[in-house]
């Protein structure tokens, strides 16, 4: 009878197809790192947008800010929550890095995990790194 052959073949096939799941079960997967809030960002508690919106959309926000600053010379952003921010990545107290002081723990940890490589820092400088 061919029945036995077919069943064994099916079992091997299912095992092989699901191999990524087996692989994940035996190896440790790294949990996504949480961006760490340090210094001013920790006490301030108010960012431009809600936390989850910020996580999902910060890149489009930065893109919008760049056009506004460079093309329209509008440099102040008053957010929906009433706070105003200096539309700048790294210059001054009221910029992104002015509040989120540690670039490595805030930007890089997630970007590295997600293997995205934004080229912001090819030109923009982290004031902490210039010594």
């Amino acid at each position: 009878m061919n029945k036995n052959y077919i069943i064994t073949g099916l079992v091997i096939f299912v095992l092989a197809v699901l191999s990524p799941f087996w692989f994940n079960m035996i190896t440790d997967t790294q949990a996504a790192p949480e961006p760490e809030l340090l210094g001013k960002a920790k006490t301030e508690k108010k960012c431009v947008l809600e936390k989850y919106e910020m996580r999902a959309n910060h890149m489009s926000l930065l893109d919008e800010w760049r056009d506004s600053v460079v093309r329209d010379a509008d440099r102040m952003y008053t957010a929906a929550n009433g706070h105003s921010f200096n539309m700048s990545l790294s210059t001054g107290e009221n910029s992104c890095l002015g509040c989120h002081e540690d670039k490595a723990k805030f930007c890089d940890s997630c970007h590295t995990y997600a293997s995205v490589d934004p080229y912001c820092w090819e030109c923009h400088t982290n004031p902490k790194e210039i010594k």
Partner: protein
Amino acid sequence: MMKKSKRSFLKVAGIAAIGLGAFPAIHFASSDSHGTAHTVKSPNEGALLAHRWGMVIDTNKITDEVVENIVEACHKAHNVPDFNHEVDEEKYPKTRPVNHKQEVKWIWEEGFHYAFPDKEDEFLAERFHDLPFLVTCNHCKNAPCVKACPTQATFKREDGIVLMDFHRCIGCRFCMAACPYGSRSFNFRDPRPFIDETVSTFPTRSKGVVEKCNLCAERLAKGEQPHCVEASEGAIVVGDLEDPESEVRVLLNEHYTIRRKQSLGTEPSVYYIM
């Protein structure tokens, strides 16, 4: 028992499909009304504004020392690389040797004959032969670089400043070919190893983009005068060309001034008091 016909099933299925399809649109429309509506983008308080920015350079007040101070102040504040700078081998190992033809400059000294080739008189006053002239981007009214740029990385701002969005520059250098003043420089290599002291208030550039004077747009936005004006000891004045009361217009009214390669029709905004 109700008997379902094929027809009634299809009707219900069709209505359900429309509902499912419309849901995202309704969701989008309802979320938009309370989304980004309350955000406001505005210029800084106290920013210097003009209808058309222009510059007047008093050549009588320009000495070699003033030139040096101005160039240094500008280049330092904007992280312009100096290829004579000795590279820090530890930080930047294996840096290629420098080709000095690839210099980057925003404002620099030029001789009269190069700055004003169309004003070559047979018996030119002798003092002009070795007088230092400061040249930079002229922020032309009809800027040829703006027309040449295929990505609109170079554009003319409403206040007359010819500005660059370095993010958008693809390094094609059409603008460099278009500019009759040589005001633009290309980054043939990563400039960072050649910046003596990186200033954190202005970004550096990356390899493959063009750069030039931005009339210190970042300082005007804070209500401050450009670096060259501050370092010039009164030789350079920047102001609104369209405002007849402004300092630049008063100076233009009182003195004889020339502009570079005026016959090309680019309408430069930088004037030289002779």
